[in-house]
């Protein structure tokens, strides 16, 4: 108990929470945007990998860090438009398209990495984003600009969704595409746009791993973070604010378990500590997201002129 207290009272713990949460925030917002428009995007896991790779590669090739981030976003956007082409243009199953893209993006990144770096002893590195010491604020000062961007995106996305015609159309195509079509909004265009933008966010999420959290690209380094985001969106019942909350909550559990696991009084097998975040997420889901009100058209392909 006292242990828990001094963990929580340690400022650097909260620094860690925010750091761990950052990629999840980007990713969750990305998924949220796609699903608000009615499209499930299981491509996220792969898009994270691709974003991590291209973002890093760009910087390694000598470009500035922010260009790397842009490259990652662009990669995400490209993969997103593939997903859009398959799920919106051709109205294929969103599950299979998503999983297909995950497989494609992942293996393509690995292949690209190996082709570009055949000889390896220790993986090549770049100089990642620096902490924002200049920023006077406590916890934020030990974060990198990407974290700031992630935090800024939350209110921004909320504003777009709830306070702009574009956002309204996004929500409408996710609720009732026929209605949107009937009011002169092109379902295909809006959905495509949402998927592309959302996937770009996922790309940035990936780049955080290689441009901020670490300084090199590794195989399997994304390690399921994408799937977590898919879960968090439901937990957030498709609201940006709650998405932030969810990401922080998950990161909180993760940071806690890392600290509990290593203390001498840790009697349980380490796996149980690693389980903590997932178990608690399901619990949270049961408490928060029972009967969550879905975007009504989620996972329902829409073909104009058919019923």
């Amino acid at each position, binding site marked *: 108990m006292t242990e828990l207290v001094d963990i929580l009272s340690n400022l650097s713990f909260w620094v860690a929470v925010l750091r761990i949460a950052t990629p999840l925030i980007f990713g969750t917002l990305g998924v949220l945007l796609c699903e608000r428009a009615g499209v499930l995007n299981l491509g996220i896991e792969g898009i994270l990998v691709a974003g991590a790779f291209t973002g890093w590669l760009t910087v390694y090739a000598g470009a500035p860090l922010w260009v790397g981030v842009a490259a990652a976003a662009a990669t995400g956007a490209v993969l997103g438009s593939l997903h859009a082409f398959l799920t919106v243009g051709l109205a294929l199953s969103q599950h299979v398209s998503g999983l297909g893209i995950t497989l494609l993006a992942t293996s393509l990144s690995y292949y690209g990495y190996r082709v570009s770096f055949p000889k390896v002893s220790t993986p090549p590195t770049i100089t990642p984003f620096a902490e924002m010491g200049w920023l006077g604020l406590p916890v934020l000062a030990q974060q990198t600009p990407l974290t700031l961007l992630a935090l800024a995106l939350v209110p921004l996305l909320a504003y777009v969704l709830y306070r702009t*015609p*574009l956002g*309204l*159309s996004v929500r409408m195509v996710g*609720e*009732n595409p*026929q209605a949107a079509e*009937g*009011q002169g909004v092109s379902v295909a265009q809006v959905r495509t746009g949402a998927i592309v933008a959302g996937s770009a966010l996922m790309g940035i999420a990936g780049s955080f791993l290689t441009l901020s959290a670490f300084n090199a690209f590794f195989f399997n380094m994304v390690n399921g973070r994408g799937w977590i985001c898919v879960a968090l969106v439901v937990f957030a019942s498709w609201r940006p604010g709650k998405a932030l909350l969810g990401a922080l909550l998950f990161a909180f559990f993760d940071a806690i378990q890392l600290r509990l696991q290593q203390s001498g009084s840790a009697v349980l097998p380490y796996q149980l500590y690693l389980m903590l975040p997932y178990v608690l997420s399901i619990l949270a889901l049961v408490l928060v997201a029972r009967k969550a009100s879905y975007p009504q058209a989620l996972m329902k392909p829409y073909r104009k002129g058919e019923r």
Partner: protein
Amino acid sequence: MSDPVLVLSGITKRFGSLVANDSISLHLGAGEVLALLGENGAGKSTLVSILFGHYVADAGHIRAFGQSLPAGDPKAALAAGIGMVHQHFTLADNLSVLDNVMMGSEPLWQPFTRRSAARQRLAEVAQRFGLAVDADALVGSLSVGARQRVEILKALYRGARILILDEPTAVLTPQESEALFDVLTQMVAQGLSIIFISHKLGEVLRVSHRVAVLRGGKLVAQAPAQGTTQSQLAQWMVGHAIEAPVRQPSRGAGEVVCELDNVSTGRGREKLHQVNLQLRSGELVAIAGVSGNGQVALAELLSGTRTASAGRVTLQGQPLPASPADLVKRGVARIPEDRHAVGVVGDLPLWENVASERLRTPAFSIWGWVRRAAAKAYAQRVIAAFDVRGGGATSAARALSGGNMQKLILGRALLHPDAATTDGVQAQTHTPRLIVAHQPTWGLDIGAVRYVQGQLLAARDAGAAVLVISDDLDEVLTLGDRVAVMHAGALSAARPAEDWTRETIGLAMAGAEH
């Protein structure tokens, strides 16, 4: 007459082999109300869908206000001042009325929504046409009538000069319909033009200036509403005369089949409060009422998809079985309100839909093994006996028009698999003991309506106890031996039809004591 605001010429639309619209040419005058009539599946919705740009016609073109209209582009239609109220609501339940209405009215890339302005404009429009709605209510929480108003407001908000209404009254109560007609009159007064699709010939003749009749995708007749009779219209639609079913007085009610004793259930708008009712064999009890006063609860209760929270429901002495399957076994025939959402599983073939209710009986399965041959044979008989058109036993149920879908449901409910005859419900021994029909005729064309009503009466005469719940007063008065009125979950005493007048019923529906 002033030159037409809308001209359709040679519109043709095919779905596969089927020609839904066959080179239809039609025009609409300024300030004119044109009624579009036709059987289920005649091509009405298709035609207006093309007009509004949902479908792209295979041939023909459209001019609105002199400008020719690009095909398959609702945006253009809206811009040209065409508004459409779809047959099946196109609203987002999770969004507010205002959101639903203003969606798409602002440039997509505008950095902010002008909400207050929009709310004001909505209020104006609503006020101008007397369409009261709460702008901030979630659409999902609204009554059917209110949703209908939202649909119309959507169109008017976009400044529609031509309004298309596809079966607007199919889902409305008489009162709501009346209110709608007042609105239409106002619109016409303000120079709008209206295309109005309906199966209710009475109202058609009242509100429209001109009628156009489709049959099998062809335009078969046009005439001024003045001086045209209902039977004339029916004749055009179906191709032959249709005689309204005349209800011979019941051959005397038999023993009590089903009894509700102080039954209460449900909550909110859909509750029952201490309802008492006796249903006797050979008698048809019709229940009138504004929808949303507990009819759904009552229907579900007697269909086995809901249980009573208080009171007793008995079927022939024993307590009413809880599950639909058992109800069917005990001879209860059920006709649900929403044929599309509840009546059939659209993706499955007709034969499975027909057999589904009795799939768990020896008739159609042994040891969980479906007797496909028997089921298909049964389906064939239902299709033949109830004249279901537009699909064979193996085609998907969704491809049926509402009318045929309803016949199918009726058939599966009334024709017992063991009934020797393939002729409707004549076989005395196998007629259902109790028939629960909720809105059995909404959305159906006149021919289908008459057919369904005829079957229900025939079943009554064959000894079934029949309960018809409907908010169509004409239907209630045509069919009911006894009539009861539902209001706020309470049910009035069921008195002989002769004791009621339209007025007294109307009062009762409005909640007045008597």
